[in-house]
């Protein structure tokens, strides 16, 4: 039995490091602001911030006693990713006016809980699962303890950086820096799992797609297949992978670039009586100070662009299982929920294929997060039948990249996969073959790229 589990160490170290960096940055920012506020803040930090950390510890321990199902656990993990978005919006708003609302700094303990509460709970769940999986309770928690300690040690060694960091931190810079921490250290799942860029991208794709749909409905565009195909093929470009990926980058980087250009402007007001060398010195000192304050923004832009680049390079990362051949029996197809090596209720899509009169018919079974089964053709009414892949929170049309939220799978219309009626009895799913043939007639007649 191992003395400690490395995965537990790494996860705890990441979270501990994030919290410590948060502490370091807020302390550095506090030391850069006016004396009057500073003394108040120091008092505040010593007490309130410690209480916030204590709350995180309590959250951690309560996580070990909570028994949430996978859906809620996933919700908590995703909440952690959304905190980045809220931080980013806060940074952009504060940067717009270039005036930090210093009062907000007094909300720091709340911010700490908000940013790392979900991560702490997730870590707690993760360690619980890990210890059960490895059957090594002590090793898991010793690893986590060591990881937390390593993060705290780094804080002690880096406390001398406070003075230097204070030079580069404005309120906007502080929020951008916290965003960077959130991006790089993520939650328990890390950046790859709580991936912000695909989330924003999928959101955009859904928005563009629904917007166009509504527009069609509003203008009563006739539902003729020929018109539909031509128009959708064209419009599909605008909510395709490449286009929305590009828009995602713009959304994440352009506001930061605009704020950067505002920060790097010469001072708009020169104090009265400042002329000649004194005026030049004032401008120079101002610009030097602002260039330092621009550092967090520049780092943010570099980090986001780099992550975006790797994400754009790696593609959507969809789960696309191979269809399993099935045969009809007395006009029905029967599927057992559990078979050796297969559990079609596990929350993943399970594709099946059967042949009739020389034609292949594909469909899939999907157990939605709300526990309801959906059985659909692996095709919709609009696109050529390329089928669907599974992302973290959506099914995705392989042809047009439209995201279909899990809980709408099984509902008819638009880009949703065409639902099939079925019956579920004695842990067996029964589908009438005629139902499949009837529904397949709705499938768009365009030729698949396969």
């Amino acid at each position, binding site marked *: 039995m191992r003395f400690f589990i490395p995965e537990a160490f790494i996860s705890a170290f990441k979270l501990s490091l994030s919290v410590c960096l948060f502490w370091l940055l807020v302390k550095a920012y506090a030391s850069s602001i006016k004396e009057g506020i500073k003394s108040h803040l120091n008092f505040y930090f010593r007490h309130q911030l410690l209480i916030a950390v204590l709350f995180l510890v309590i959250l951690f321990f309560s996580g070990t006693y909570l028994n949430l199902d996978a859906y809620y656990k996933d919700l908590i993990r995703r909440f952690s990713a959304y905190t980045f978005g809220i931080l980013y919006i806060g940074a952009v708003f504060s940067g717009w006016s270039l005036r930090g609302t210093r009062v907000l700094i007094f909300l720091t303990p709340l911010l700490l809980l908000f940013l790392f509460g979900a991560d702490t709970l997730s870590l707690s769940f993760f360690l619980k699962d890990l210890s059960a999986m490895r059957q090594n309770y002590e090793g898991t928690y010793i690893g986590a303890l060591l990881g937390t300690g390593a993060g705290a040690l780094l804080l002690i060694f880096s406390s001398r950086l406070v003075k230097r960091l204070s030079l580069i931190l404005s309120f906007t810079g502080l929020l951008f820096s916290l965003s960077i921490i959130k991006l790089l250290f993520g939650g328990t799942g890390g950046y790859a799992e709580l991936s912000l860029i695909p989330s924003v991208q999928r959101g955009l794709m859904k928005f563009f797609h629904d917007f166009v749909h509504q527009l069609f409905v509003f203008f009563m565009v006739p539902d003729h297949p020929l018109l539909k195909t031509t128009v959708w093929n064209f419009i599909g470009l605008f909510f395709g992978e490449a286009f929305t990926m590009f828009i995602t980058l713009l959304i994440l980087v352009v506001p930061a670039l605009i704020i950067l250009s505002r920060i790097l402007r010469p001072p708009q007001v020169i104090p009265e009586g400042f002329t*000649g*060398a*004194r005026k*030049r*010195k004032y*401008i*120079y*000192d101002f*610009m030097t100070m602002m260039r330092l304050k621009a550092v967090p923004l520049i780092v943010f832009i570099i980090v986001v662009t780099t992550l975006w680049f790797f994400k754009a390079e790696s593609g959507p990362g969809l789960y696309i299982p191979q269809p399993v051949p099935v045969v009809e029996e007395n006009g029905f197809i029967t599927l057992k929920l559990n078979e050796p090596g297969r559990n079609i209720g596990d929350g993943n899509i399970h594709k099946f294929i059967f042949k009739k009169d020389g034609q292949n018919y594909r469909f899939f079974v999907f157990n939605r997060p709300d526990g309801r089964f959906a059985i659909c053709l692996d095709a919709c009414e609009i696109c050529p039948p390329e089928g669907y892949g599974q992302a973290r929170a959506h099914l995705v049309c392989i042809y047009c990249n439209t995201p279909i939220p899990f809980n709408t799978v099984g509902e008819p219309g638009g880009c949703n996969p065409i639902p099939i009626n079925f019956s579920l009895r004695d842990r067996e799913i029964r589908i009438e073959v005629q139902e499949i043939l009837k529904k397949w007639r709705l499938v768009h007649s365009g030729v698949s790229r396969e």
Partner: protein
Amino acid sequence: MIKVRGLKKVYQTAIALRGVDMDISQNEWVSIMGPSGSGKSTLLNILGGLDYPSEGSVTINGKEISSMKEDELAVFRRENIGFVFQQSYLIPYLTALENVMLAQYFHSIVDEKEAKEALERVGLGHRLHHKPSELSGGEQQRVCIARALINSPKILLADEPTGNLDRENTRLILELLRDLHRNEGFTIVLVTHDPYVAGWGKRLLTMEDGRIIKDEVLHP
């Protein structure tokens, strides 16, 4: 403004200053005279933070510069002291205007309009775009004065500023310094061996063998 106490400077083979004490007030024009090797230039270099004393202290506007680190001293020099030397030390491939702007650049940021005005004030408005080799010795020295004063120093240190000039150009330069001194109120410490030049100051310090041997008021 400038307070010097017990200033000594010892080189490996010679003693340049043997204990100098003096006070210079704001807006004073002090000339320092003495024979070659009497320690005039050494004193001026230490006053300007170009050299460290072996002993003693130099305090300017309440700040003891003799104990400052190199980088602190560079900032102090940049913001408080202007230098004019016997040699012009202008950058040969830059124009008069660019030479002045270079001093602005090392101080903070450049301002072409202000640099032009500085050259116009020393009577070189028509020579802005001439390189040092296209200027006479007197004109070069006037560029140096514009360069020394562009960053509004509180003190101008001049080491034989007219040493290479004929009498007419010497008079022009000294008149220029006098006008600027009157209008802008900076302190001048001027080292010379020429009694005519020294006579333009309000006070004359005479040095010999590393000591001030005479301190007299010329124009009360």
